[in-house]
């Protein structure tokens, strides 16, 4: 589609914050390339732009300087933001690219600020969804949320992510440290990657480790990779770990580099997720890409079961006894490990690559016309 001025229609992306090494940031930058390659003009406008990406995006309030007839707004919906009411005021034809957000109840009692922001996000969604031409969701779980908010036309498209980072050369120092410790102590290395927040339920992982060590493998270790946005939860988690006598067995390295992350995926025996809310679960796909078997809670965990498909041991609950038995089986049954790794790699291929970009182009062209 060409505007009256003879230029291709623009599909501009708007989002709350553009950050490097962040799933939404990576997705937004990759989608811009996909949109441009398809023939649309496309720029990024954000409420906050990280210094490292200052050349990649404009502040959202600078949009009028770039506005043209026929512009389409594509909003990366991740949390509450002033960008939502700003877009409602602009009245542009709107596409929601919905990454889901943690419901306020999951922050209740922990972080009043996060609880308030999550409640505001629900209001932002109620404001924009009924007006959207199209809602793109990462999973049928998120698609239901969009439909319930009033979005009339929806499609499911996976996230555009940089999964190659988990198979790139791992940080040799981190890999050697993990390897040496295992050689000295024995025991399995259990990995989870995700922010340390109540909805990821890292305390359930600690309970599972405690049970696993008691019943099956007294030397097992748990690696909880990821930063935090909840001091109260992090503090409670750390004190819980100390009280259980697991200070030497649970490591909280915080946010790590891509190469260090690759080392964790390479050295771990199993990826364990007991999260109670995932709109998609990029780390699950990273684990599958790395050939790491997954044990995960499925029921009540959002999109986890859909993301992993049949390529993981998906449990009905986070019951520590059940989780421990599943970990034991995965860590000691080579045939099962091979089966899960093979199925995981195949499932990961389904969720990445050029075809994902094509899915976005087809869905968007379906409502705004071919570029």
């Amino acid at each position, binding site marked *: 589609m060409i505007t009256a001025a003879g230029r291709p229609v623009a599909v501009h992306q708007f989002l709350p914050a553009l950050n490097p090494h962040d799933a939404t940031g990576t997705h937004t930058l990759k989608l811009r390339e996909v949109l441009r390659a398809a023939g649309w003009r496309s720029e990024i406008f954000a409420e906050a732009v990280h210094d490292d990406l200052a050349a990649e995006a404009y502040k959202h309030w600078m949009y009028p300087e770039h506005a043209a007839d026929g512009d389409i707004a594509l909003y990366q919906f991740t949390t509450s933001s002033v960008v939502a009411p700003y877009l409602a005021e602009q009245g542009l034809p709107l596409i929601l690219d919905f990454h889901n957000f943690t419901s306020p109840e999951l922050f209740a*009692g922990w972080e009043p600020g996060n609880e308030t922001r999550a409640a505001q996000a629900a209001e932002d969604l109620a404001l924009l969804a009924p007006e959207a031409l199209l809602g793109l969701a990462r999973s049928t779980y998120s698609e239901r949320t969009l439909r319930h908010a009033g979005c009339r036309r929806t499609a499911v498209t996976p996230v555009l992510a940089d999964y190659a980072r988990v198979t790139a050369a791992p940080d040799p120092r981190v890999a050697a440290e993990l390897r040496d410790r295992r050689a000295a102590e024995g025991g399995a290395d259990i990995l989870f990657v995700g922010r340390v927040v109540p909805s990821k339920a890292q305390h359930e992982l600690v*309970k599972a480790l405690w049970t696993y060590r008691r019943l099956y493998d007294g030397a097992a270790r748990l690696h909880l990779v990821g930063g935090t946005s909840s001091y109260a939860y992090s503090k409670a988690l750390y004190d*819980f770990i100390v009280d259980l006598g697991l200070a030497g067995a649970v490591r909280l390295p915080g946010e790590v580099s891509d190469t260090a992350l690759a080392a964790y995926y390479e050295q771990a025996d199993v990826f364990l997720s007991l999260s109670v809310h995932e709109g998609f679960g990029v780390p699950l796909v990273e684990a599958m890409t790395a050939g790491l078997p997954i044990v995960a809670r499925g029921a009540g965990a959002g999109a986890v079961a859909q993301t992993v498909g049949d390529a993981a041991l998906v449990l009905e609950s986070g019951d520590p006894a*059940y989780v421990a038995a599943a970990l034991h*089986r995965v860590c000691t049954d080579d045939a099962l490990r091979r089966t899960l790794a093979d199925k995981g790699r195949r499932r990961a291929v389904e969720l990445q690559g050029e075809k994902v970009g094509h899915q976005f182009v087809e869905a968007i062209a379906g409502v705004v016309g071919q570029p």
Partner: protein
Amino acid sequence: MAEHTGDTAPDPEDPGAYVQQVMAEIAEEVRLRRASGDLPPRLERELDELFLAHSPIGVRGGDLSEALRLVDAATFIDPVVPVESERAAGAAVKKGMRTMLLWYVGWVTHQMSQSTSAVSRALHIVDDHLKELERRIEAQRVPDATVVEFPTSVPPGAWWIEPALAALAKAPGRVLHAACGNGWLVRRIVDSGLDAYGIDPRAPIVDAAELGALDLRDEHVTEHLRAVAAAGLGGIVLSGTVEGMAGGERMLLLAAIGVTLAPGGTLVIHSVGRGAWEAADAPYGADLAPGRPLRSDTWCRVLEESGYTAAAEQGPDGSDYLITAVRTGLTPYKQPEPGIR
């Protein structure tokens, strides 16, 4: 790690069945572990309690009594501060300061403990009163009506579909059908050229169809309408919904419709009559419902007093009827005074 020696081996032709078999073996392993006493149930409870002990008070306690127990535990403020120190003279310095300041700090903390204790006592009295009220209210609680479908509510016996579609033809906006079931009427409305969606509280029925081409949602009608913008709907169809409602629930539904149905919008109500409701072959939900169907002329009267022009059409065998009403103004629904007729 020891190699697992289970019986199951992967079948290259059917890896899915293999994983299912593994899951079953894991469940059996858990059962045996529990039966052997390796993992007493109290252990998991103790793990939960230990984590909660480190959590903020807001995360703990599911009710007021539990929260008050935590308040009671935190009521006493200890003025005797710990004096341990990693530095050589640190403990002696801290102890000296504690001794010097204890008369002052102790006086302040004593008053704070007294104050907190008084507040806690008052809250306990409130808690006792609330519990007594809950006990009394629970005994008199009127349950919400469920969807009750008669043969005339759904195809092929639903004679009222064509008149309903005709009434909706000029609906000035989106049409809602409650209870929509699998979306059979929503599809008919969409096929007639209108924009429509459906809701139904029966989750298993809606779940199967929710993400298809039709917009169907697993929601209760009154709760849903409360979330819809004022004058946001051009038409509302109620079938299998209103017959068993008690007066209060029906009043709340009509109030919500009064807010969400745009002026000029159409309200369609299909209801069975009292004869069908009381018949021996009526669905069991009719017996359990807190209310009974209104007469068709009562519906017309109630709607006309609430700003609608309403008409009733009786079904071919007289067992049910259809109300079609057009909203003429924004008069909010009001409960009729008893004995007004």
